[in-house]
Protein backbone atom coordinates (compact mmCIF):
# COMPACT_ATOMS: atom_id res chain seq x y z
CA UNK A 1 0.00 0.00 0.00
CA UNK A 2 2.65 2.51 0.99
CA UNK A 3 6.16 3.12 -0.24
CA UNK A 4 6.21 0.62 -3.07
CA UNK A 5 9.15 0.81 -5.40
CA UNK A 6 7.03 2.24 -8.16
CA UNK A 7 6.11 5.24 -6.09
CA UNK A 8 9.74 5.82 -5.25
CA UNK A 9 10.53 6.41 -8.89
CA UNK A 10 7.56 8.56 -9.86
CA UNK A 11 9.01 11.64 -11.55
CA UNK A 12 7.78 15.02 -10.36
CA UNK A 13 4.85 16.55 -12.15
CA UNK A 14 5.29 19.60 -14.32
CA UNK A 15 3.31 21.87 -11.99
CA UNK A 16 5.63 20.84 -9.19
CA UNK A 17 8.55 22.21 -11.17
CA UNK A 18 6.72 25.50 -11.45
CA UNK A 19 6.17 25.43 -7.72
CA UNK A 20 9.84 24.67 -7.06
CA UNK A 21 10.97 27.61 -9.15
CA UNK A 22 8.46 29.81 -7.35
CA UNK A 23 9.83 28.59 -4.03
CA UNK A 24 13.36 29.48 -5.09
CA UNK A 25 12.36 33.03 -5.99
CA UNK A 26 10.27 33.43 -2.83
CA UNK A 27 13.16 32.30 -0.73
CA UNK A 28 15.52 34.73 -2.41
CA UNK A 29 13.09 37.54 -1.72
CA UNK A 30 12.37 36.51 1.89
CA UNK A 31 16.00 36.03 2.83
CA UNK A 32 16.83 39.32 1.15
CA UNK A 33 19.93 40.21 3.07
CA UNK A 34 21.27 36.68 2.98
CA UNK A 35 20.61 36.45 -0.74
CA UNK A 36 22.45 39.70 -1.22
CA UNK A 37 25.36 38.35 0.77
CA UNK A 38 25.56 35.21 -1.36
CA UNK A 39 25.12 37.20 -4.53
CA UNK A 40 27.89 39.68 -3.76
CA UNK A 41 30.16 36.91 -2.53
CA UNK A 42 29.69 35.00 -5.76
CA UNK A 43 30.00 38.15 -7.85
CA UNK A 44 33.16 39.34 -6.16
CA UNK A 45 34.88 35.98 -6.32
CA UNK A 46 34.04 35.68 -9.97
CA UNK A 47 35.19 39.22 -10.59
CA UNK A 48 38.57 38.45 -9.08
CA UNK A 49 38.73 35.37 -11.25
CA UNK A 50 37.73 37.33 -14.33
CA UNK A 51 40.21 40.14 -13.77
CA UNK A 52 42.99 37.60 -13.35
CA UNK A 53 41.94 35.74 -16.46
CA UNK A 54 42.06 38.91 -18.53
CA UNK A 55 45.40 39.81 -17.01
CA UNK A 56 46.86 36.45 -17.92
CA UNK A 57 45.40 36.60 -21.41
CA UNK A 58 46.94 40.02 -21.93
CA UNK A 59 50.34 39.08 -20.59
CA UNK A 60 50.36 36.12 -22.92
CA UNK A 61 49.37 38.35 -25.79
CA UNK A 62 52.18 40.77 -25.00
CA UNK A 63 54.79 38.06 -24.86
CA UNK A 64 53.46 36.73 -28.15
CA UNK A 65 53.78 40.09 -29.78
CA UNK A 66 57.38 40.40 -28.57
CA UNK A 67 58.03 36.93 -29.90
CA UNK A 68 56.52 37.92 -33.21
CA UNK A 69 59.27 40.50 -33.56
CA UNK A 70 61.99 37.91 -33.15
CA UNK A 71 63.72 36.79 -36.29
CA UNK A 72 66.56 34.70 -37.58
CA UNK A 73 69.04 36.33 -39.92
CA UNK A 74 70.61 33.97 -42.43
CA UNK A 75 73.65 35.64 -44.09
CA UNK A 76 74.05 34.61 -47.69
CA UNK A 77 77.24 33.96 -49.65
CA UNK A 78 76.41 36.46 -52.34
CA UNK A 79 73.69 38.73 -53.71
CA UNK A 80 70.90 36.69 -55.30
CA UNK A 81 69.14 37.32 -58.57
CA UNK A 82 65.36 37.13 -58.90
CA UNK A 83 65.21 33.42 -59.75
CA UNK A 84 67.60 32.29 -57.05
CA UNK A 85 65.81 34.43 -54.52
CA UNK A 86 62.36 33.05 -55.38
CA UNK A 87 63.50 29.43 -55.14
CA UNK A 88 65.38 29.99 -51.85
CA UNK A 89 62.44 31.83 -50.36
CA UNK A 90 59.94 29.12 -51.23
CA UNK A 91 62.38 26.56 -49.85
CA UNK A 92 62.68 28.41 -46.55
CA UNK A 93 58.95 28.97 -46.29
CA UNK A 94 58.33 25.22 -46.25
CA UNK A 95 60.35 24.81 -43.03
CA UNK A 96 57.77 24.12 -40.31
CA UNK A 97 57.28 27.12 -38.01
CA UNK A 98 58.39 29.75 -40.48
CA UNK A 99 55.92 32.60 -40.80
CA UNK A 100 57.60 35.11 -43.11
CA UNK A 101 60.77 35.44 -45.12
CA UNK A 102 62.32 38.75 -46.17
CA UNK A 103 65.39 39.41 -48.33
CA UNK A 104 67.79 42.17 -47.35
CA UNK A 105 70.34 43.25 -49.95
CA UNK A 106 73.77 44.69 -49.05
CA UNK A 107 72.63 48.29 -49.59
CA UNK A 108 69.59 47.85 -47.47
CA UNK A 109 71.72 46.33 -44.74
CA UNK A 110 74.01 49.35 -44.68
CA UNK A 111 71.06 51.76 -44.60
CA UNK A 112 69.60 49.93 -41.67
CA UNK A 113 72.83 49.89 -39.76
CA UNK A 114 73.08 53.60 -40.26
CA UNK A 115 69.60 54.06 -38.87
CA UNK A 116 70.31 51.89 -35.90
CA UNK A 117 73.39 53.85 -34.91
CA UNK A 118 72.55 57.48 -35.59
CA UNK A 119 75.46 58.67 -33.41
CA UNK A 120 78.05 56.87 -35.44
CA UNK A 121 77.31 58.53 -38.79
CA UNK A 122 80.96 59.20 -39.32
CA UNK A 123 81.80 55.52 -39.28
CA UNK A 124 79.42 54.83 -42.10
CA UNK A 125 80.52 57.76 -44.18
CA UNK A 126 83.91 56.13 -44.12
CA UNK A 127 82.75 52.73 -45.34
CA UNK A 128 80.18 54.03 -47.82
CA UNK A 129 82.02 53.19 -51.01
CA UNK A 130 83.30 49.81 -49.88
CA UNK A 131 80.25 48.27 -48.19
CA UNK A 132 81.55 45.27 -46.22
CA UNK A 133 78.09 43.93 -45.32
CA UNK A 134 76.55 40.69 -46.57
CA UNK A 135 73.07 40.18 -48.00
CA UNK A 136 70.71 38.21 -45.73
CA UNK A 137 67.35 36.55 -45.35
CA UNK A 138 65.25 37.63 -42.35
CA UNK A 139 63.12 34.74 -41.25
CA UNK A 140 60.24 35.18 -38.82
CA UNK A 141 59.23 32.21 -36.75
CA UNK A 142 55.87 31.45 -35.21
CA UNK A 143 56.95 30.78 -31.64
CA UNK A 144 60.13 31.50 -29.79
CA UNK A 145 60.76 27.87 -28.90
CA UNK A 146 60.77 27.00 -32.61
CA UNK A 147 63.61 29.36 -33.40
CA UNK A 148 66.59 27.14 -32.68
CA UNK A 149 65.21 24.29 -34.79
CA UNK A 150 64.52 26.56 -37.72
CA UNK A 151 67.96 28.14 -37.41
CA UNK A 152 69.58 24.75 -37.61
CA UNK A 153 67.73 23.82 -40.81
CA UNK A 154 68.62 27.17 -42.33
CA UNK A 155 72.28 26.70 -41.46
CA UNK A 156 72.47 23.51 -43.46
CA UNK A 157 71.19 25.11 -46.65
CA UNK A 158 73.47 25.87 -49.55
CA UNK A 159 73.97 29.57 -50.19
CA UNK A 160 73.54 30.27 -46.49
CA UNK A 161 76.90 31.25 -45.11
CA UNK A 162 76.03 31.87 -41.48
CA UNK A 163 72.94 31.95 -39.29
CA UNK A 164 72.48 34.43 -36.48
CA UNK A 165 69.74 34.96 -33.93
CA UNK A 166 69.67 36.39 -30.41
CA UNK A 167 70.14 32.97 -28.88
CA UNK A 168 70.19 34.32 -25.34
CA UNK A 169 67.22 36.60 -25.76
CA UNK A 170 65.27 33.83 -27.41
CA UNK A 171 66.11 31.40 -24.69
CA UNK A 172 65.20 33.86 -21.97
CA UNK A 173 62.01 34.70 -23.71
CA UNK A 174 60.89 31.15 -24.21
CA UNK A 175 61.60 30.46 -20.55
CA UNK A 176 59.63 33.50 -19.53
CA UNK A 177 56.78 32.43 -21.78
CA UNK A 178 56.70 29.01 -20.26
CA UNK A 179 56.81 30.39 -16.73
CA UNK A 180 54.18 32.99 -17.46
CA UNK A 181 51.91 30.34 -18.92
CA UNK A 182 52.45 27.95 -16.06
CA UNK A 183 52.17 30.72 -13.48
CA UNK A 184 49.09 32.19 -15.09
CA UNK A 185 47.46 28.80 -15.32
CA UNK A 186 48.33 28.08 -11.69
CA UNK A 187 46.97 31.46 -10.61
CA UNK A 188 43.74 31.04 -12.54
CA UNK A 189 43.41 27.49 -11.25
CA UNK A 190 43.98 28.63 -7.70
CA UNK A 191 41.46 31.42 -8.08
CA UNK A 192 38.91 29.10 -9.65
CA UNK A 193 39.30 26.79 -6.69
CA UNK A 194 39.07 29.68 -4.25
CA UNK A 195 35.96 30.95 -6.01
CA UNK A 196 34.43 27.51 -5.87
CA UNK A 197 35.16 27.15 -2.17
CA UNK A 198 34.05 30.64 -1.26
CA UNK A 199 30.77 30.41 -3.13
CA UNK A 200 29.98 26.93 -1.91
CA UNK A 201 30.83 28.01 1.64
CA UNK A 202 28.38 30.83 1.33
CA UNK A 203 25.72 28.47 0.02
CA UNK A 204 26.47 26.01 2.79
CA UNK A 205 25.97 28.71 5.40
CA UNK A 206 22.57 29.59 3.92
CA UNK A 207 21.49 25.97 3.86
CA UNK A 208 22.75 25.48 7.41
CA UNK A 209 20.63 28.39 8.57
CA UNK A 210 17.58 26.52 7.34
CA UNK A 211 18.44 23.03 8.57
CA UNK A 212 15.52 22.89 11.02
CA UNK A 213 13.10 23.84 8.26
CA UNK A 214 14.50 21.05 6.11
CA UNK A 215 14.01 18.54 8.91
CA UNK A 216 10.39 19.61 9.35
CA UNK A 217 9.70 19.31 5.63
CA UNK A 218 11.05 15.79 5.60
CA UNK A 219 8.85 14.86 8.55
CA UNK A 220 5.79 16.11 6.69
CA UNK A 221 6.58 13.73 3.83
CA UNK A 222 8.61 15.79 1.39
CA UNK A 223 10.92 13.81 -0.88
CA UNK A 224 14.55 14.75 -1.06
CA UNK A 225 13.97 16.22 -4.53
CA UNK A 226 11.22 18.51 -3.33
CA UNK A 227 13.54 19.98 -0.73
CA UNK A 228 16.69 19.90 -2.78
CA UNK A 229 15.44 21.58 -5.93
CA UNK A 230 14.42 24.96 -4.54
CA UNK A 231 17.91 25.18 -3.02
CA UNK A 232 19.58 24.16 -6.26
CA UNK A 233 17.48 26.59 -8.26
CA UNK A 234 18.13 29.33 -5.72
CA UNK A 235 21.86 28.64 -5.89
CA UNK A 236 21.75 28.62 -9.67
CA UNK A 237 19.82 31.87 -9.85
CA UNK A 238 22.13 33.62 -7.40
CA UNK A 239 25.24 32.22 -9.07
CA UNK A 240 23.91 33.17 -12.48
CA UNK A 241 23.02 36.66 -11.29
CA UNK A 242 26.44 37.01 -9.67
CA UNK A 243 28.10 35.80 -12.85
CA UNK A 244 26.09 38.11 -15.08
CA UNK A 245 26.66 41.12 -12.86
CA UNK A 246 30.35 40.35 -12.91
CA UNK A 247 30.41 39.82 -16.65
CA UNK A 248 28.70 43.16 -17.22
CA UNK A 249 31.07 44.98 -14.90
CA UNK A 250 34.09 43.30 -16.42
CA UNK A 251 32.97 44.01 -19.96
CA UNK A 252 32.34 47.70 -19.41
CA UNK A 253 35.38 48.08 -17.20
CA UNK A 254 37.73 46.34 -19.60
CA UNK A 255 36.61 48.31 -22.64
CA UNK A 256 37.02 51.55 -20.70
CA UNK A 257 40.44 50.51 -19.49
CA UNK A 258 41.61 49.48 -22.94
CA UNK A 259 40.49 52.77 -24.40
CA UNK A 260 42.24 54.69 -21.67
CA UNK A 261 45.40 52.61 -22.08
CA UNK A 262 45.40 53.20 -25.81
CA UNK A 263 45.56 56.92 -25.22
CA UNK A 264 48.39 56.72 -22.73
CA UNK A 265 50.37 53.76 -24.05
CA UNK A 266 49.48 53.34 -27.72
CA UNK A 267 52.37 50.92 -28.24
CA UNK A 268 51.16 48.46 -25.55
CA UNK A 269 49.77 45.39 -27.29
CA UNK A 270 46.55 44.76 -25.28
CA UNK A 271 43.91 42.27 -26.33
CA UNK A 272 41.06 44.24 -27.81
CA UNK A 273 39.12 41.56 -29.63
CA UNK A 274 35.56 41.22 -28.38
CA UNK A 275 35.70 37.48 -28.83
CA UNK A 276 38.16 36.93 -25.97
CA UNK A 277 36.10 39.20 -23.75
CA UNK A 278 32.93 37.36 -24.72
CA UNK A 279 34.53 34.04 -23.92
CA UNK A 280 35.76 35.18 -20.53
CA UNK A 281 32.36 36.66 -19.67
CA UNK A 282 30.47 33.55 -20.77
CA UNK A 283 32.88 31.46 -18.75
CA UNK A 284 32.17 33.55 -15.66
CA UNK A 285 28.40 33.29 -16.05
CA UNK A 286 28.61 29.55 -16.60
CA UNK A 287 30.97 29.12 -13.66
CA UNK A 288 28.70 31.15 -11.39
CA UNK A 289 25.61 29.16 -12.31
CA UNK A 290 27.42 25.86 -12.07
CA UNK A 291 29.04 26.54 -8.71
CA UNK A 292 25.77 27.88 -7.31
CA UNK A 293 23.91 24.77 -8.38
CA UNK A 294 26.59 22.29 -7.39
CA UNK A 295 27.30 24.06 -4.10
CA UNK A 296 23.63 23.95 -3.14
CA UNK A 297 23.22 20.36 -4.21
CA UNK A 298 26.20 19.28 -2.14
CA UNK A 299 25.38 21.44 0.89
CA UNK A 300 21.76 20.40 1.14
CA UNK A 301 22.75 16.74 1.06
CA UNK A 302 24.02 16.65 4.63
CA UNK A 303 20.75 17.95 5.96
CA UNK A 304 18.52 15.56 4.07
CA UNK A 305 19.39 12.57 6.23
CA UNK A 306 16.48 13.02 8.64
Amino acid at each position, binding site marked *: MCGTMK*EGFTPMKLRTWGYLLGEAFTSIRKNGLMSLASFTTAGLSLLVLGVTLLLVVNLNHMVRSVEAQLEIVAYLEKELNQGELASLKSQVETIPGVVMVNYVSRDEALDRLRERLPDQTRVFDTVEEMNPLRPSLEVQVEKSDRISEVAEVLGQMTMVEEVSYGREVVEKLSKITRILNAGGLALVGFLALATLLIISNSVRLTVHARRREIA*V*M*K*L*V*GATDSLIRWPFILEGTILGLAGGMGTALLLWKGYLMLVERLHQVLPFLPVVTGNDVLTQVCLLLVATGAFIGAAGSALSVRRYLRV
Partner: protein
Amino acid sequence: MIEMHHVSKIYYPARVVALQDINLFIEKGEFVFIVGPSGAGKSTLTKLIYREDVPSEGRVFVLGKDITRLRRREIPFLRRKIGVVFQDFKLLPDRTVYDNVAFALRVIEASPREIRKRVPAVLDLVGLLDRARNLPGQLSGGEQQRVALARAIANNPPIVIADEPTGNLDPQTSWEIVCLLKEINRFGTTVIMATHDEKIVDAMQKRVIALERGHIVRDDERGVYAHEA
Protein backbone atom coordinates in the same frame (compact mmCIF):
# COMPACT_ATOMS: atom_id res chain seq x y z
CA MET B 1 -2.63 -1.65 10.23
CA ILE B 2 0.03 -0.89 12.87
CA GLU B 3 1.93 -3.69 14.56
CA MET B 4 4.89 -3.68 16.90
CA HIS B 5 6.76 -6.85 17.76
CA HIS B 6 9.16 -6.84 20.69
CA VAL B 7 10.12 -3.25 20.06
CA SER B 8 12.74 -1.53 22.21
CA LYS B 9 14.25 1.90 21.84
CA ILE B 10 17.42 2.87 23.63
CA TYR B 11 18.98 6.31 23.10
CA TYR B 12 22.73 6.34 23.08
CA PRO B 13 25.20 7.45 24.33
CA ALA B 14 23.26 8.16 27.53
CA ARG B 15 21.65 4.67 27.30
CA VAL B 16 18.19 6.10 28.01
CA VAL B 17 15.71 3.26 27.69
CA ALA B 18 12.67 4.96 26.15
CA LEU B 19 10.74 1.81 25.21
CA GLN B 20 11.16 -1.82 26.18
CA ASP B 21 9.68 -4.94 24.62
CA ILE B 22 6.56 -3.27 23.25
CA ASN B 23 3.98 -5.48 21.53
CA LEU B 24 1.09 -3.67 19.97
CA PHE B 25 -1.65 -4.17 17.40
CA ILE B 26 -3.81 -1.34 16.19
CA GLU B 27 -6.56 -2.11 13.70
CA LYS B 28 -7.68 0.09 10.86
CA GLY B 29 -10.27 2.59 12.11
CA GLU B 30 -9.35 2.43 15.79
CA PHE B 31 -9.17 5.43 18.11
CA VAL B 32 -6.36 4.91 20.61
CA PHE B 33 -5.24 7.07 23.54
CA ILE B 34 -1.70 6.74 24.76
CA VAL B 35 -1.25 7.98 28.32
CA GLY B 36 1.50 7.96 30.88
CA PRO B 37 3.72 10.23 32.95
CA SER B 38 6.21 12.65 31.47
CA GLY B 39 9.07 10.79 29.82
CA ALA B 40 7.20 7.47 29.72
CA GLY B 41 7.87 6.98 26.02
CA LYS B 42 4.63 8.16 24.38
CA SER B 43 6.28 10.42 21.81
CA THR B 44 8.95 7.84 21.13
CA LEU B 45 6.27 5.26 20.38
CA THR B 46 4.66 7.56 17.82
CA LYS B 47 8.02 8.45 16.29
CA LEU B 48 8.57 4.80 15.48
CA ILE B 49 5.32 4.73 13.50
CA TYR B 50 6.13 7.59 11.12
CA ARG B 51 9.79 6.62 11.21
CA GLU B 52 11.36 9.68 12.72
CA ASP B 53 13.26 7.03 14.66
CA VAL B 54 13.99 3.36 14.11
CA PRO B 55 13.67 0.87 16.97
CA SER B 56 16.85 -0.47 18.55
CA GLU B 57 15.23 -3.90 18.49
CA GLY B 58 12.07 -5.46 17.10
CA ARG B 59 9.90 -4.88 14.06
CA VAL B 60 7.31 -2.26 13.24
CA PHE B 61 4.69 -2.89 10.55
CA VAL B 62 2.64 0.01 9.20
CA LEU B 63 0.08 -0.35 6.44
CA GLY B 64 1.33 -3.85 5.74
CA LYS B 65 5.00 -3.03 5.39
CA ASP B 66 7.97 -3.65 7.67
CA ILE B 67 9.05 -0.03 8.04
CA THR B 68 12.25 -0.87 9.90
CA ARG B 69 13.48 -2.14 6.53
CA LEU B 70 12.32 0.80 4.47
CA ARG B 71 14.75 2.33 2.00
CA ARG B 72 15.54 6.00 2.46
CA ARG B 73 13.69 6.81 -0.75
CA GLU B 74 10.50 5.18 0.45
CA ILE B 75 10.22 7.04 3.75
CA PRO B 76 8.44 10.14 2.36
CA PHE B 77 5.72 7.93 0.94
CA LEU B 78 5.13 6.39 4.37
CA ARG B 79 4.99 9.79 6.04
CA ARG B 80 2.44 11.09 3.55
CA LYS B 81 0.06 8.40 4.73
CA ILE B 82 0.38 9.56 8.33
CA GLY B 83 -0.75 13.01 9.47
CA VAL B 84 1.17 14.05 12.58
CA VAL B 85 0.41 16.80 15.10
CA PHE B 86 3.83 17.18 16.64
CA GLN B 87 4.12 17.93 20.34
CA ASP B 88 6.18 21.00 19.49
CA PHE B 89 4.07 21.79 16.38
CA LYS B 90 7.04 21.93 13.95
CA LEU B 91 5.51 24.65 11.81
CA LEU B 92 7.70 26.34 9.21
CA PRO B 93 8.42 29.73 10.79
CA ASP B 94 8.97 31.58 7.51
CA ARG B 95 5.73 30.52 5.84
CA THR B 96 2.22 31.71 6.45
CA VAL B 97 -0.39 29.54 8.09
CA TYR B 98 -1.87 28.96 4.66
CA ASP B 99 1.44 27.84 3.16
CA ASN B 100 2.18 25.63 6.13
CA VAL B 101 -1.02 23.71 5.56
CA ALA B 102 -0.64 23.80 1.79
CA PHE B 103 2.79 22.22 2.14
CA ALA B 104 1.23 18.91 3.18
CA LEU B 105 -0.68 18.97 -0.10
CA ARG B 106 2.30 20.07 -2.18
CA VAL B 107 4.33 17.07 -1.09
CA ILE B 108 1.68 14.81 -2.60
CA GLU B 109 1.73 17.03 -5.70
CA ALA B 110 -1.91 18.00 -5.38
CA SER B 111 -3.28 20.25 -8.10
CA PRO B 112 -3.50 23.99 -7.41
CA ARG B 113 -7.29 23.67 -7.55
CA GLU B 114 -7.30 21.00 -4.87
CA ILE B 115 -4.99 23.11 -2.71
CA ARG B 116 -7.14 26.22 -3.09
CA LYS B 117 -10.18 24.22 -2.04
CA ARG B 118 -8.75 22.07 0.70
CA VAL B 119 -6.58 24.50 2.68
CA PRO B 120 -9.33 27.00 3.56
CA ALA B 121 -11.61 24.07 4.36
CA VAL B 122 -9.31 22.57 7.02
CA LEU B 123 -8.39 25.98 8.40
CA ASP B 124 -12.09 26.61 8.85
CA LEU B 125 -12.42 23.29 10.67
CA VAL B 126 -9.90 24.40 13.32
CA GLY B 127 -11.36 27.91 13.43
CA LEU B 128 -8.40 29.81 11.98
CA LEU B 129 -9.52 30.73 8.49
CA ASP B 130 -9.12 34.44 9.25
CA ARG B 131 -5.49 33.95 10.32
CA ALA B 132 -4.39 32.27 7.07
CA ARG B 133 -2.07 35.12 6.10
CA ASN B 134 -0.26 35.25 9.45
CA LEU B 135 3.09 33.69 10.23
CA PRO B 136 3.16 31.04 12.98
CA GLY B 137 5.12 33.44 15.21
CA GLN B 138 2.15 35.79 15.13
CA LEU B 139 -0.24 33.25 16.59
CA SER B 140 -0.96 32.23 20.15
CA GLY B 141 0.24 28.84 21.37
CA GLY B 142 -3.17 27.26 21.01
CA GLU B 143 -3.63 28.72 17.56
CA GLN B 144 -0.33 27.25 16.41
CA GLN B 145 -1.34 23.90 17.76
CA ARG B 146 -4.53 24.03 15.72
CA VAL B 147 -2.58 24.92 12.58
CA ALA B 148 -0.47 21.82 13.19
CA LEU B 149 -3.67 19.78 13.37
CA ALA B 150 -4.99 21.36 10.18
CA ARG B 151 -1.79 20.39 8.40
CA ALA B 152 -1.98 16.84 9.75
CA ILE B 153 -5.46 16.21 8.39
CA ALA B 154 -5.17 18.26 5.20
CA ASN B 155 -4.43 15.41 2.80
CA ASN B 156 -6.89 12.94 4.36
CA PRO B 157 -4.26 10.46 5.55
CA PRO B 158 -5.37 6.96 6.62
CA ILE B 159 -3.57 7.43 9.95
CA VAL B 160 -3.51 10.53 12.18
CA ILE B 161 -1.12 10.74 15.09
CA ALA B 162 -1.69 13.59 17.54
CA ASP B 163 0.95 14.07 20.20
CA GLU B 164 -0.57 16.11 23.01
CA PRO B 165 -2.78 18.07 20.59
CA THR B 166 -4.66 19.91 23.35
CA GLY B 167 -1.72 20.77 25.61
CA ASN B 168 -2.06 24.47 24.79
CA LEU B 169 -5.82 24.63 24.51
CA ASP B 170 -8.55 25.61 26.95
CA PRO B 171 -11.08 22.87 27.87
CA GLN B 172 -13.71 24.24 25.49
CA THR B 173 -11.43 24.33 22.44
CA SER B 174 -9.88 21.01 23.46
CA TRP B 175 -13.28 19.40 23.23
CA GLU B 176 -13.89 20.83 19.83
CA ILE B 177 -10.58 19.43 18.61
CA VAL B 178 -11.24 16.00 20.07
CA CYS B 179 -14.66 15.99 18.46
CA LEU B 180 -13.01 16.81 15.17
CA LEU B 181 -10.66 13.84 15.58
CA LYS B 182 -13.60 11.63 16.51
CA GLU B 183 -15.41 12.75 13.38
CA ILE B 184 -12.40 11.96 11.21
CA ASN B 185 -12.16 8.60 12.94
CA ARG B 186 -15.82 7.90 12.20
CA PHE B 187 -15.04 8.15 8.48
CA GLY B 188 -12.41 5.42 8.78
CA THR B 189 -9.19 7.17 9.77
CA THR B 190 -7.09 5.49 12.43
CA VAL B 191 -6.37 8.01 15.20
CA ILE B 192 -3.63 7.71 17.79
CA MET B 193 -3.55 10.44 20.40
CA ALA B 194 -1.00 10.85 23.17
CA THR B 195 -2.48 12.98 25.91
CA HIS B 196 -2.43 14.01 29.56
CA ASP B 197 -6.03 15.16 29.61
CA GLU B 198 -7.84 12.95 32.12
CA LYS B 199 -11.27 14.40 31.41
CA ILE B 200 -11.11 13.77 27.70
CA VAL B 201 -9.80 10.23 28.04
CA ASP B 202 -12.37 9.33 30.65
CA ALA B 203 -15.26 10.81 28.69
CA MET B 204 -14.39 9.32 25.30
CA GLN B 205 -14.47 5.67 26.41
CA LYS B 206 -11.97 4.57 23.78
CA ARG B 207 -9.02 2.20 23.88
CA VAL B 208 -6.32 3.41 26.28
CA ILE B 209 -2.72 2.27 26.26
CA ALA B 210 -0.83 3.32 29.38
CA LEU B 211 2.94 3.56 29.31
CA GLU B 212 5.30 3.80 32.24
CA ARG B 213 9.07 3.93 31.94
CA GLY B 214 8.93 2.39 28.49
CA HIS B 215 6.61 -0.48 29.35
CA ILE B 216 2.96 -0.95 28.45
CA VAL B 217 1.35 -1.24 31.86
CA ARG B 218 -2.26 -1.27 30.69
CA ASP B 219 -4.22 -1.71 27.43
CA ASP B 220 -7.98 -1.38 27.97
CA GLU B 221 -10.66 -1.52 25.31
CA ARG B 222 -12.86 1.16 26.88
CA GLY B 223 -10.38 2.62 29.27
CA VAL B 224 -9.94 5.60 31.57
CA TYR B 225 -6.93 7.82 32.24
CA ALA B 226 -5.98 6.16 35.53
CA HIS B 227 -7.48 3.57 37.84
CA GLU B 228 -6.39 5.18 41.05
CA ALA B 229 -6.27 8.97 41.20
